[in-house]
């Protein structure tokens, strides 16, 4: 009986947490007497949010943003996964490159912004580049780490059954490193989404980051906060879906032989 109730309420605790957050926010805007802050109240922001959703203005901005993140992640995966496999496989390559990667990883991608614009111009290209520079490292590092999971015995067994190099890559190495690859991808998605917003504040006229600046310039502060909430919500959904995907693809993981 009791455990039933605990489980029931447990499922909704995150929602309650969010409601508490909204209440605290509302209280903060009520207590601090500031005409600007009154625009940020829940009762002003949520109607804006609703308006953006029903007029379709929301999707016009979300789609370009998702496209930019998607393209950058795709390129980062296409480059990072083979790179990670090679580094994981050849110790020399690992020793050669890992310190440099750790070094590059610590540089905020935004630091490349002036160079990106100088070389790639204005538009989507520098955004792809900046997001790519954030996403590539966790993919490389996690993938190469995953290669360590590949047991030598599995490769011997595969050869015993007649596997060639290509079969070993496809049927042993890739499935074996998939858990780490998906972990890397999940981290990369989080970083990409965070980098995207400031990156969209330069030189493009669509996307969620751009909308923040645009709303500010129109003095539409309630709308601006609505965009902020949308950014958080989509980021959250992206993360949840990647976690779900990982759980689904790796159904065996909870039974892993130790």
């Amino acid at each position: 009986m009791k455990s039933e109730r605990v489980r029931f309420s447990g499922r909704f605790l995150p929602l309650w947490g969010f409601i508490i957050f909204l209440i605290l926010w509302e209280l903060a805007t009520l207590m601090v007497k500031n005409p600007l802050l009154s625009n940020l109240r829940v009762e002003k922001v949520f109607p804006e949010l609703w308006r953006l959703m029903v007029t379709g203005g929301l999707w016009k901005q979300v789609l370009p943003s998702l496209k930019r993140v998607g393209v950058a992640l795709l390129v980062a995966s296409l480059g990072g996964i083979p790179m990670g496999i090679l580094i994981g496989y050849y110790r020399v390559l690992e020793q050669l490159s890992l310190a440099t990667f750790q070094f590059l990883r610590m540089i905020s991608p935004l630091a490349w912004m002036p160079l990106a614009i100088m070389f790639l111009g204005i538009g989507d290209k520098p955004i792809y580049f900046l997001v790519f520079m954030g996403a590539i490292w966790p993919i490389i590092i996690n993938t190469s780490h995953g290669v360590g999971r590949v047991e030598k015995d599995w490769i011997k067994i595969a050869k015993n059954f007649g596997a060639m190099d290509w079969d070993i890559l496809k049927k042993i190495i890739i499935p074996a490193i998939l858990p780490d690859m998906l972990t890397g991808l999940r981290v990369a998605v989080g970083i990409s989404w965070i980098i995207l917003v400031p990156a969209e504040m330069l030189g493009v006229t669509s996307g969620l980051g751009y909308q923040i600046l645009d709303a500010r310039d129109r003095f539409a502060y309630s709308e601006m906060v609505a965009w902020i909430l949308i950014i958080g919500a989509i980021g959250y959904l992206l993360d949840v879906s990647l976690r779900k995907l990982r759980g689904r693809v790796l159904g065996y993981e909870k039974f892993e032989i130790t």
Partner: protein
Amino acid sequence: MKNSKLPKIIVRNLGKSFLTPRGERVEVIKEISFEVQEGEFLVILGPSGCGKTTLLNLLVGFEKPDRGEVLIDGERAKEVSPERILLWQFFGLFPWRTIWENIEFGLELKRVPQAEREKIISELVRITGLRGFENRYPGEISGGMQQRVSLARALAVDPEVLFMDEPFGSLDASMRKVLEDELLRILSRKKKTVVFVTHNVEEALYLADRIIILSSRPTRIVKEIVPSFSKPRDEISDEFLKLKNEIVKILRTETQFLYTVGL
């Protein structure tokens, strides 16, 4: 077994040593020669650490000998081959594949058509007692079950020779007994040449057409024994116990207490 027939496997003057990380040379196999006839169940019995796994690795082709040669059907085997499958002590299943997919592994590599695959796998699932477990993952099932899967995966590619490296060594005594019986039953339907390695005297006597006893390292053949009574054997019969005592005596003198006797 006709002696006029060419032996399936000929092992001639095989020798193998390893270089340790410290640079010392460890001689594992001194000099070994024997033959395995087609369809024979040969058991190689030796104490732990004597070089049984090393010997199997040489026979399968994972390692190259320092001296001597291994002939399969009279010819020097160049590569490992699905015709000669090794079963591992710790099963060696792929954790990301279900039981069904593990058994399917070799058939995929052989590009066996889907319909035929299903026929082969469902038969093997049936005769190895895995029905109902097809969609489980290896981590979900017991060690005994996992070794059945490993056996089914090997049988799926219909190899000429099965090499088995203490396949039941990590199982408890009763499960081991069950699997020994199952192995004999399955082999009576699918005739194979088997080279079975163990350190367990009873297991050797229960399964073998012929037993080769190895000394401790550097290993050599101490004696060859052919149990004359037919299978299935009764482990408490006089002839069984008599032979068992004889083997234990040999191991005692040859291996300085390093032997193990099963329950």
